[in-house]
């Protein structure tokens, strides 16, 4: 395990009205790791992702990327009175980036319910991800003065699609792809933004054991190939146990356990959380 | 396949487009013994009511004179009526339709804005236009193809200012105009100039298109201590103003220009005790031979045609614009006779020296192409039986 810390989620609390979705959560992800975030339905995992990627502004807490604070907030305004979480007053800085700023830093994500640009072709879907790093402005782009840049982008995308064996489908509308390929395309698209850290939100949802196995292989491959650090949310325990180096378990917003797959499998609190509270955890 | 169908459909439409223009080209010249007179008037929109009344006058004139002898040959006169929708952006297209129909001369339009907007279309085609009731100076100014037989706004504004001072001893006038309406703003402005010139003070306000609540304006008028309210607006706004003024029981007389000379106003005012005075081109009670003959003939014609009667607002009150429409048509006929040709250029050449004694008085054109007029009729609304009372023939001091 490399000691270089990649992502630190520090005391993050997300409160919607009177409901706390993420409660004082802290997660560390080191470079070159695969870390899983698991928990029963409604535990606040996706909300955590949304806080990291700038979709939501956390109510309190901060998030650091490679040692630098990228998100930070504390209860203000109406929240000042309503706040029910901990560590109030610990933070005083407000940094609320938009998702695109997070992506530019090198953090890419996929979505629980696949969000592709359904009307655009497979190729265009990937090409769009190249937009943020292209050296161009609207004038040079319109009048094709950026043709070198454009050519480079296209070539890179072709190469990526070839690798992911999606090249033969490149002109098909993304929405017309079968489910498994849509997942794969979504991951490819995230890869096209040249990330260092990849956040996968339930990549194996809706897959059978066979497909899940293939996915595990695929995740390992891309991790090696693109030198990625991966944080994933998943319900398929076999996948989680197989690929992740460390696991965080979240329940009712709170962190209830952390450790290696073996440790987690034995942890009584985790077992309670899954079996004692939610019946459909391993669905 | 679908795409091919759509392409085929488009091709067909394009073909129709060309077929259309082919037909148009041949259609214009077939009947050699027909002279077309274009009628460029609004029959919808803000000025639809007035436009229709003007068309009625023209149609009545056409029913009286529908042939013309040039060089021993009898030509039939055909009216080509087109609706300019009271809208400046539709006016050029409507005008182009008339040009496309090869009209020899055009009559119109009610409303100065559309006349100005379409002026260059006629100008470029070299077709003379005779404006019946467009009173804004800009219509004829600076072009040689536009003529008009009515008086102008500066004159009308001055007449009304004089009338206000003479009759009501007015010191303060409240002027209400409609934003974006050339006629309204222009006439309001000329009235203001004249009224201030006569030593009065004015309070000005304007309302926006589509406004239907005038109570606030009327309140302002009351608060400003106005002796008269001058509201040169379209009939549409007029009926709102009258209705609300009546509801508020104000005792300030309302003054307005020629647009208000319409049965719409009488309808709105009937049964109230609102004082309304308008300046106009023609009075129904005119007892000159030509005038009374026109009034009687026109009424009979209206009553014989239910459609026409409906277009006149459902009654047989003769609007001044109908009389002007009648005269404009007759002037066009005179000009064609004088030119001895149906060629627009010849008619344009003949028009400046054309004179005609119409039901609205003697018509002769000055250098700009405006009729030389020096009197206006003032009428007041008789709210008891919904008719007009003749008040005075007002001239300028």
């Amino acid at each position, binding site marked *: 395990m490399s000691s270089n810390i990649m992502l630190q989620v520090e005391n993050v609390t997300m409160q919607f009205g009177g409901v706390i979705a993420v409660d004082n959560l802290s997660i560390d992800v080191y470079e070159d790791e695969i870390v899983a975030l698991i928990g029963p339905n409604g535990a606040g995992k996706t909300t955590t992702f949304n806080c990291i990627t700038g979709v939501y502004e956390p109510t309190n807490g901060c998030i650091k990327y490679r040692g630098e604070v990228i998100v930070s907030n504390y209860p203000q305004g109406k929240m000042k009175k309503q706040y029910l979480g901990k560590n109030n007053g610990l933070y005083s800085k407000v940094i609320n980036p938009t998702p695109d700023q997070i992506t530019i830093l090198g953090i890419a994500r996929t979505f629980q319910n696949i969000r592709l640009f359904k009307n655009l072709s497979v190729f265009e879907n990937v090409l769009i991800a190249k937009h943020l790093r292209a050296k161009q402005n609207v004038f040079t782009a319109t009048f094709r003065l950026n043709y070198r840049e454009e050519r480079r982008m296209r070539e890179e995308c072709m190469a990526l699609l070839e690798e992911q064996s999606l090249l033969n489908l490149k002109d098909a509308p993304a929405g017309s792809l079968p489910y498994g390929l849509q997942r794969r395309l979504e991951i490819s698209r995230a890869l096209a933004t040249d990330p260092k850290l990849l956040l996968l939100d339930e990549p194996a949802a809706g897959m059978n054991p066979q497909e899940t196995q293939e996915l595990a292989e695929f995740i390992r491959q891309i991790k090696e190939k693109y030198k990625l650090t991966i944080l994933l949310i998943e319900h398929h325990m076999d996948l989680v146990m197989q690929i992740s180096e460390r696991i965080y378990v979240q329940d009712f917003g709170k962190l209830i356990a952390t450790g290696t797959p073996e440790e987690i499998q034995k942890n009584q609190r985790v077992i309670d959380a899954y079996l004692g509270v939610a019946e459909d955890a391993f669905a | 396949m679908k795409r091919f169908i759509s392409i085929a459909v488009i091709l067909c439409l394009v073909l129709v487009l060309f077929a259309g223009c082919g037909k148009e080209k041949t259609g214009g010249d077939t009947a050699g013994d027909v002279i077309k007179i274009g009628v460029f008037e609004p029959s*919808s929109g803000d000025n639809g009511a007035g436009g229709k009344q003007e068309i009625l006058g023209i149609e009545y004139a056409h029913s009286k004179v529908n042939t013309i002898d040039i060089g021993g040959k009898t030509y039939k006169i055909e009216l080509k009526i087109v609706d300019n929708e009271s809208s400046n952006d539709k006016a050029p297209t409507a005008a182009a339709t008339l040009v496309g129909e090869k009209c020899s001369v055009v009559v119109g339009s009610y409303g100065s804005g559309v006349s100005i907007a379409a002026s260059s279309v006629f100008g470029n085609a070299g077709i003379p236009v005779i404006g019946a009731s467009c009173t804004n100076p800009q219509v004829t100014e600076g072009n040689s193809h536009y003529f008009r037989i009515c008086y102008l706004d500066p004159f009308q504004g001055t007449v009304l200012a004089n009338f206000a001072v003479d009759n009501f001893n007015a010191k303060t006038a409240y002027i209400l105009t409609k934003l974006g309406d050339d006629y309204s703003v222009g006439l309001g402005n000329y009235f203001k100039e004249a009224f201030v010139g006569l030593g009065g003070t004015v309070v000005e306000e304007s309302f926006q298109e589509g406004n239907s609540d005038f109570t606030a304006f009327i309140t302002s008028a009351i608060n400003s201590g106005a002796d008269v309210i001058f509201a040169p607006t379209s009939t549409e706004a007029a009926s709102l103003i009258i209705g609300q003024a009546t509801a508020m029981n104000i005792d300030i007389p309302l003054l307005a220009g020629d647009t208000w000379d319409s049965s719409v106003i009488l309808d709105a005012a009937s049964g109230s005790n609102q004082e309304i005075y308008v300046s106009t081109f023609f009075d129904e009670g005119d007892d000159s031979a030509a005038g009374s003959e026109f009034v009687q003939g026109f009424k009979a014609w209206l009553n014989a045609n239910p459609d026409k009667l409906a277009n006149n607002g459902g009654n047989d009150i003769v609007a001044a614009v109908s009389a002007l429409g009648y005269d404009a048509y007759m002037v066009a006929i005179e000009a064609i006779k004088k030119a001895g040709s149906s060629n627009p250029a010849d008619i344009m050449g003949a028009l400046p020296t054309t004179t005609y004694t119409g039901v609205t008085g003697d018509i002769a054109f000055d250098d700009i192409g405006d009729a030389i007029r020096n009197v206006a009729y003032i009428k007041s609304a008789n709210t008891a039986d919904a008719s007009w009372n003749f008040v005075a023939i007002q001239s300028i001091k």
Partner: protein
Amino acid sequence: MEFINTYLPYILAGISVGGQYALIAIGYTMVYGILRLINFAHGDIFMAAGFMMVYLSASMPLYISIPLVIILTVILGFLVERIAYRPLRTAPRMSIMISAIGVSYLLQNCAWYLTSGLPKQYPKIPWISASVSIGASTTTVVTLITPILTIVLIVALVLLIKHTKIGMAMRAVSRDFETSQCMGIKINSVIGITFIIGSFLAAIGSLLYFTNYSTVTPISGAMPGLKAFVAAVFGGIGSVPGAVVGAFLIGICENILKIKELDMTTFSDAFTFALLIIILIAKPTGLFGEKITDKV
């Protein structure tokens, strides 16, 4: 006293027009709450009600023509929903909105065709058209009864929504369209009833409005319609009391702007929209609206 005498008419006019806007605004807010559709045609249904009154009262006594106008308006509103919106239930929202614009265009053009664009004189309804004096200013009875009638109707409507089965269904549908469909609520009849209530109130609003302003034209529905919509947004779309408060506020504000000394008449319409934009930016949910967050 002098002050009141000078400015009372503006306030009165504002309250009266506010009440009329409120009656239209409810139609917008209820339809938007359920279908998430700005029913652009609503203002034109209001206008159509005006024309029906003009034509019907010409041949029938008022006690027949008034109920008939209300019934016909309700039918018109229902038909518009049935023909122009229901087939597009599954279409993207933009399509329905465009359809609404199309209906508005159609209704205006039909009115234009039937009346040849001529303004029609609205019939005088005895008693409510009469003039009364308050202090030194004169106004009509309709100005005074409008706010009262508006409040009464709205209280009735709120009771209906709160305490009846159909009201509950409406609230459910506006909260979650799909789920309530799954729960066995007949979506189409709920939407139909929403349009019926909206049109009914628009018909009453039209009676009051045109009695006050005396003339109906094909475009006389457009501006009040837009302003009522602004009122609905201002109060928080989907909220009936919000729409009413918004409507009265807008009605009063735009009349205050017409006070001569302010010299802002040019902006009395623009003001409404400026208010809209300010509220949308400062508080997108309006005064009483509830926040809806997109789920990611």
